[in-house]
């Protein structure tokens, strides 16, 4: 299997704080990688580096085997890397279709560069239908949707932009079972289509093992464990984390 994204020895320091301490990871073509870890383990910093939002202090990144140094979100995006952040990056007062095309609006021909709302509305509807996401209307402001629907819109927006590498920051956070089911179905559906490679930050071990092909555990800015999802279990992961707690308490 070819690799879509590879990171080697990423380090990120914020002043005296080392958020990432030599993290390496490989995301293979068409797989879902689950990244687990406690708060403050460096998951979000890692995500922000992979999307070009932050630049690493040290380390290298490879997209499709070529070394790149991402200098902005736009740059990462031009390489096919899209991220859905935990805060969703949705503008609540804007309609679903404006959110789906935020910062890549369809414009009408002509020197005035006016927004083509009709085209955006139509494309947004098609895209959501194609992904099986059901909402009452693309004209609604997103503040009128449920948490699961909003997450689905955010994922659909990322996918709709011809992303090849999708990064998800806690896609199931604070979601009920039915809502989470909606997103899990969407992710599995995207995986079956096979165009996307997905890395997602997760909190819930059981859900992660359900969706992901591989899992990676981060602690204190390092990767401490990496395995195929089929070859590990919730018990095993819990045991590693418990050992860590005991070590902290004992030390």
């Amino acid at each position, binding site marked *: 299997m070819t690799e879509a994204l590879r990171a080697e020895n990423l380090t990120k320091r914020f002043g005296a704080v080392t958020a990432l301490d030599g993290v390496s990871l490989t995301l293979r073509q068409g797989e879902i990688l689950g990244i687990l870890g406690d708060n403050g383990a460096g998951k979000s910093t890692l995500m922000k580096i992979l*999307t070009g*939002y932050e630049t690493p202090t040290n380390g290298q990144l490879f997209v499709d085997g070529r070394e790149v140094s991402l200098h*902005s*979100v*736009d740059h990462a*995006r031009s390489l096919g890397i899209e*991220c859905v*952040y935990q*805060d*969703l*990056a*949705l*503008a*609540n*007062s*804007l309609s679903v279709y*404006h959110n789906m095309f*935020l*910062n890549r*609006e369809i*414009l009408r021909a002509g020197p*005035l*560069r*006016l*927004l083509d*709302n009709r085209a955006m509305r139509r494309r947004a509807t098609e895209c959501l239908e194609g992904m099986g996401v059901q909402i009452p209307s693309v004209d*609604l402001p997103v*503040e*009128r*949707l*449920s948490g699961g629907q909003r997450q689905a819109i955010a994922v659909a927006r990322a996918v709709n932009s011809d992303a090849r590498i999708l990064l998800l920051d806690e896609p199931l956070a604070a979601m009920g079972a039915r809502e989470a089911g909606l997103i899990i179905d969407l992710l599995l559906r995207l995986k079956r289509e096979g165009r996307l490679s997905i890395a997602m930050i997760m909190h819930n071990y059981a859900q992660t093992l359900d969706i992901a092909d591989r899992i990676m555990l981060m602690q204190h800015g390092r990767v401490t464990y990496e395995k195929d999802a089929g070859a590990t279990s919730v018990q095993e992961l819990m045991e590693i984390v418990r050992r860590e707690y005991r070590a902290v308490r004992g030390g």
Partner: protein
Amino acid sequence: MTGSRRRFLDAFARWQEASILVVALLLIAWFENANHDFLLTSASLENLSQFVAPAAIIACGEIMLMIGGEIDLSAGMVFALAPFVMYFAADAGIPLVPALILGILAAGAVGLVNGVVTLILGVPSFVTTLGTLFLVNGLTLTISHGTPVTPPGSPAFAEVMGAWGYSEILWTLLVVVVLHGVLRHTRWGLHTIASGANETGAREAGIHVTRLKIGNFVLVGVLSGFTGCLEAFRIGSIDPQAGGNQIMFLAVAAGVIGGTPLAGGSGTIIGGLIGALVLGVLNDGFTLIGINAFLFNIILGAAILAAMLFNIYITRLARKGGRA
């Protein structure tokens, strides 16, 4: 909540501009009934348009800022500065049109300073522009020695730039139409709304929020300076005390009454024009029916509060209705 009630609230919320228009029309009808000279004479219509115009033009700029979650308190002082820059430029031998442009550019430069200090140095815009309010006021008083001067140029030029009774309101309509188009039909407007609704999110989506907001600060500066020049030509005198905080607060009030909350993330340019119209009607109406002018501020204050409560209440109800 039942479907019909929800639809009603939806329509109401969307109807925001229309509802404030209804208020304006009711006020006009009432004053017209109380005093038949209120609108039907050309003198009072002119008078009304000249009250509405400056507040509405500056309101357009403030609304763009308010949608992005910022405010410019210095607008009224920039209003006074720009015509002096124009005057001194013309005095130094620069032709009239370039001199006018220099005045407006100076106003834009104050906006640029406001934007850079707020966005790049991280001072809240309320504080930044409070500082430049005094600074610019002092600057205007210093360069003018506190004395009014006569605007340069030919009478024809002055007529176009505000001296003819309806030229100011025509300029206003032009500004309103252009900025309404910018807000509703361009990426600039859409991104301004997005950056007010979710600044972090907008940045993460790759929107250049800093550039966008600095641009809107420059816009308010330019519009305030332009308005200052229009008023100078209309009155036939450039006064260092002109504009000031009164015009700035009227502009912000017009925006709020028209349906733009200070919280950011939503707003309407057309609403700002109608808001200015409501203020103008109240002001002229009270004068014409001979009610104490002090009452104007009481009514104005009440109108701002009522508009804000209406906004918050309707938005909250519509939101609640939307979640099944």
